[in-house]
């Protein structure tokens, strides 16, 4: 049988693939438990300790290694990612909604929107900063120019997610709502939105994570105050200590927490989606 040969090969391949995927993170995780402050970011582990985690929160006695300058950068990145998430998702839902009616020029507008995620990030960042400095004449900030660059980047993702969701959406429930004397706005709030909510969640997740670790666009567009990825990069250029790894583990755990919330919300609304699908099957 073909599968007798093929199956083990595929299994090994998948195993290697996953190892490759998580290898860097596993190494990082192990090294974050290096002894401190003498231990460096390399093997062997001198002895296991949580020193670098304590160091991160300023719980260790002062040493020659400065604490990571990430506190404010973390807040900035979280706020920026949140602002970007809300804006990109709202725009994405609205744009995808508009595309349900094949308006004139829809094809061109589609490509213009999607181009936002195709253009090299460095160019967008550089362009944004040049535009702000030389053409418009405003200062660059993480909450203004960088925010714009992030929205331009994440909006197409939110838009594509919503487009896929709305393509499968059966419009007759909306028409049913109108025929019951309910205005289109209320219909969107009470019918459409609850039913496309799983898609909205996905779009939000995309926008948040893309913005949270965005580097090339932010590099030029953010001005004086740095976001988290820039701040971390800044510390690399001096000297690397395992506290960065500890921080990496912390942010990853944060991401998992975020994903779990997403998963729970998704599971709740998938029940709805199933009901929806069953109704469509009858049609």
């Amino acid at each position, binding site marked *: 049988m073909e599968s007798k040969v093929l199956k083990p090969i595929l299994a090994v391949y998948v195993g290697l693939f996953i190892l490759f995927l998580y290898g860097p993170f596993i190494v990082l995780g192990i090294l974050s438990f290096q002894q401190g402050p003498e231990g460096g970011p390399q093997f062997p582990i001198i002895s296991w300790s949580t020193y670098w985690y304590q160091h991160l929160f300023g719980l260790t006695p002062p040493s020659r290694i400065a604490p990571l300058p990430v506190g404010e950068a973390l807040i900035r990145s979280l706020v920026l990612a949140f602002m970007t998430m809300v804006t990109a998702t709202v725009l994405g839902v609205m744009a995808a909604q508009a595309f349900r009616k094949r308006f004139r020029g829809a094809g061109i507008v589609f490509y213009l929107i999607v181009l936002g995620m195709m253009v090299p990030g460095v160019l967008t960042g550089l362009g944004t900063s040049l535009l702000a400095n030389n053409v418009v004449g405003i200062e660059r900030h993480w909450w203004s120019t960088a925010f714009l660059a992030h929205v331009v980047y994440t909006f197409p993702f939110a838009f594509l997610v919503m487009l896929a969701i709305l393509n499968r959406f*059966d419009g*007759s*429930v909306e*028409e*049913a*709502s*109108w*025929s*019951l*004397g*309910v*205005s*289109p706005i*209320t*219909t969107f709030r*009470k*019918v459409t939105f*609850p*039913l496309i909510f799983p898609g909205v969640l996905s779009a939000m997740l995309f926008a948040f994570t893309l913005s949270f670790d965005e580097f090339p666009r932010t590099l030029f567009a953010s001005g004086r105050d740095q976001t988290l990825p820039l701040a971390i990069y800044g510390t690399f250029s001096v000297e690397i200590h395992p506290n960065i790894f500890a921080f990496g583990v912390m942010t990853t755990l944060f991401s998992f927490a975020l994903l779990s919330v997403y998963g729970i919300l998704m599971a709740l609304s998938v029940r*709805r989606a*199933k*009901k*929806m699908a*069953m*109704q*469509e099957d*009858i*049609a």
Partner: protein
Amino acid sequence: MTQSEPIFRMEGVTHRYGDLTALDDIDFVAEDNSYIALLGPSGSGKTCLLRVIAGFEKPDKGRIWFQGRDITDLPAHERGIGFVFQNFALFPHLTIFENVAFGLRNGAVKVSETDIADRVTDAIDMVGLTGLEDRSPDQISGGQKQRVALARSLVLQPKLVLLDEPLGALDANLRERMQIELRAIRERLDVTFLHVTGSETEALAMGDKVAVLDQGQIVQYGTPDAIYDSPAISDVALFLNRFNLFNGELQGDTFVGPFGTVPVTAAQPNKSDVYAIRYDRTRIFSADAVDLPGPALPVRYLASEYLGSSIVFLFETKDRKTVEVDHHLSLGEPRDLTVGENYTLSWDPAQAIVFGKETAR
């Protein structure tokens, strides 16, 4: 049946999808408090007509009046016309109660909670779903969904409800029960139902009046008897699925068809010359019979189909056209036929309907 003021009227309504004319200059009037069936084959524009009336689509030309008001430019949610979808289109995220309450709760007119509770309970009771209020739409059967969809519209006390093939998604058994129930529910309320269907039996059984739609035009509008007994054009006779139709030539007082030349007393104006005789008025004789009541059509017997109250016999003419004879069993036992044998079909020529291009008569 009380026939009074027209509740609904449309004049010269035309609607196109690109090059396709779905509705072609339609005039239509619906009486208050009646059951109107709109019969049409697929692609006749019947769903388009409903969607234009509901306001989901705007006609290219023509005006629409409802309750004495021109509603042509009103959006769907301001028309006050109910709509029942073939796929029910219940709100999957709401309970049955909330589905029925939806229009009361979210409409332009504020309704108090106690009024909502009373009216929704009444509506659910009327369609016989008491006890299922807290279920969600995926926990009830197709027939129950249909009732929820109906209750959801009727709770708003509309004067006109559009039903788009409402029985199409139900199995045959349930369909007959829902036919009776739909009529019963309508009769209890002062409301006009406009029921779109592709099934001629459904249209004839349910409608106080039947409108036949073909290629975007209403080709006949009348009581079921009138349509059944005297289809206006040969296409209507074809949809009714109860007529043997023969192409031929109308020459003055005679019609020349596969059964020879027959005298004709009257002819309906039509696109082409067609001779129509109902299945149940076509009778079977042996091939060499002489005392025929009318024209003689030589045929070969193919098969029969037992339908409970009647038997349908299928024959084939020389030019391979299938001819049906419907023998009702209350008229006595049918004669024994041998498959492949030749027989002669005949009928009383007074019962035939002749359609002709010459409209001079």
